[in-house]
């Protein structure tokens, strides 16, 4: 935990510009937030209070997907009580957001390693700004269970990135796990590459292992339950290596993005 003056953030009541279904259970929500949009770094998130939720009090965290000069948007999946209520909200209705939050991805410097992005499901949401702001283009490996879980392929292509999709049921792209084409790519030549990943924990773990095997740098965005989202409550911690062992650090503050070397995947007994 650090007391170093943390980056700027805002709490604001914002109104919904658009909230439309993307594919299947996925929705895109855009809100007007001129003060927040310019502050957003790739991999940061917004902590959203879904005001119509009454007996469920906590905010829900969502990666910031895209920004314009005066709006930002999220790409979310309807998985439970909060996202279900959110999916039924109309433009003009209001939400309370605290954003931008968390330590995001390192945007590759010009001439730095070639970025390979690895995303599962809504993990794609955390990747768009990184792809958009990275001076050199790379490859996006995107995986999902079914065709509908492969999100915004076109938008990444439009940014000039190569997209390699995999689905577990083979309904779209290559059949299998997202790590298969990644391994193939790395075997073709791993030097000078860097991995950036966001998705389910098992996928992150697999990517971390690959990075270690090929001895590549990797930045992983961890998905932990959150409460305050602002570093106060110590809900969202994961075990992180330190000089003298390990300690629990906060995914909402020191994370959600960590270097693969930092992460202890099992809590030592």
């Amino acid at each position, binding site marked *: *935990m*650090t*007391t170093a003056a*943390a980056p*700027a*953030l805002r*709490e604001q009541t914002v109104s919904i510009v658009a909230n439309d279904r993307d594919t299947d259970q996925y929705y895109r929500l855009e809100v007007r937030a001129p003060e927040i949009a310019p502050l957003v770094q790739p991999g940061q998130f917004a902590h959203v*209070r879904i005001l119509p939720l009454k*007996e*469920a*009090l*906590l*905010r829900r965290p969502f990666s910031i997907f895209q920004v314009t000069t005066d709006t930002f948007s999220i790409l979310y999946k309807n998985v439970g009580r909060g996202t279900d209520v959110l999916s039924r909200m109309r433009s003009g209705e209001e939400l*309370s957001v*605290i954003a931008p939050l968390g330590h995001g991805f390192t945007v590759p410097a010009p001439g730095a390693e070639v970025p390979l992005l690895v995303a599962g499901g809504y993990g794609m949401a955390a990747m768009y700004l990184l792809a958009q702001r990275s001076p050199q283009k790379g490859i996006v490996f995107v995986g999902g269970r079914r065709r509908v879980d492969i999100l915004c392929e076109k938008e990444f292509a439009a940014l000039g990135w190569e997209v390699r999709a995999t689905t577990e049921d083979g309904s779209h792209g290559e059949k299998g796990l997202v790590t298969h084409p990644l391994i193939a790519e790395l075997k073709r030549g791993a030097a000078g590459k860097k991995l950036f990943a966001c998705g389910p924990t098992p996928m992150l773990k697999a990517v971390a292992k690959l990075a270690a095997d090929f001895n590549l740098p990797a930045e992983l965005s961890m998905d*932990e*339950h959150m*409460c*305050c989202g*602002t*570093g*106060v*409550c*110590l*809900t*969202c*911690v*994961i075990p992180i290596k330190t000089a003298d062992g390990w*300690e*629990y650090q906060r995914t909402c*503050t020191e994370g959600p993005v960590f270097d693969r070397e930092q992460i202890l995947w099992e*809590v030592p007994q």
Partner: protein
Amino acid sequence: MNLAVQIGTMRMPNPVTVASGTFGYGVEYSRLIDLNQLGAVTVKGIRLNPVRGNPTPRTAEVASGMLNAIGLQGPGVDGFIKKYWPFLRELKVPTIINIWGTTVEEYAEVARRFDALGGVGALELNVSCPNIKEGGAQFGTDVKLLAQVVAACRKATSLPLITKMSPNVPNIAPFARAAEESGSDALAVTNSFPAMAIDIRTRRPKLANITGGLTGPAIKPIAVKLVWEAAKAVKIPIIGMGGIQTAADAIEFMMAGAAAVAVGTANFYEPQTPLYVVAGIREYMEQQKFTEVGQITGSIKFS
């Protein structure tokens, strides 16, 4: 109009503080609210040495509240003084440091350390953390142990002592009196309630610690009653807490007998809450033409 509240030698410019563990060490929320508008900043529980805390998941959402079993993760006395005290010391409002130990001696030692530090507003003795075996809960449910802890800390420091009561007793009165008689300058009522939730899909407890403390609006009616009963039992001031979301909630606690209040879980979903509560209390006093905030305390009527 005077909103100030006196807790022993500590003067709170207004009756609204924050609940320990729901406001970190102050610095985190300083990006979102002006800490100098609070009555006091209360920090997360600290023991002598650093504490790693419980495995995750550590919190779960429930109807009108949440469960937590953080396990009192913290930097220990030295870590706190090094990392957080330089920031807190500069605040215009007092800092209440929530302390705990696994033995009477440890409580006293931590009290001594903060007494020596200088500039601390008050010490809050957490004798009621339900979330770790040696989290002091037993001190809070055993009158004799409670008296020992308070007396030992009383000997160790001249700082105002606030004893944070356990809600988990059939009758809070004897515990409140024991704290008062042992030299506590105030009581904090109440801590969270031992509870649990199970994810029926996985059949596993929603918390790695299995059980945790229930907090939030769900517990307010129980907390208000505990404050009312404690207030009848003692003369020292009471800091009321448990599910406060609005000024109306805070005023309800004060009418029941609280001299001051703390906002807890509400900070997590609405960090501005403490300031809204201060504004709302001021407004209420204007309507009622009150000159002293103490006029609200214990103003419940029965006829």
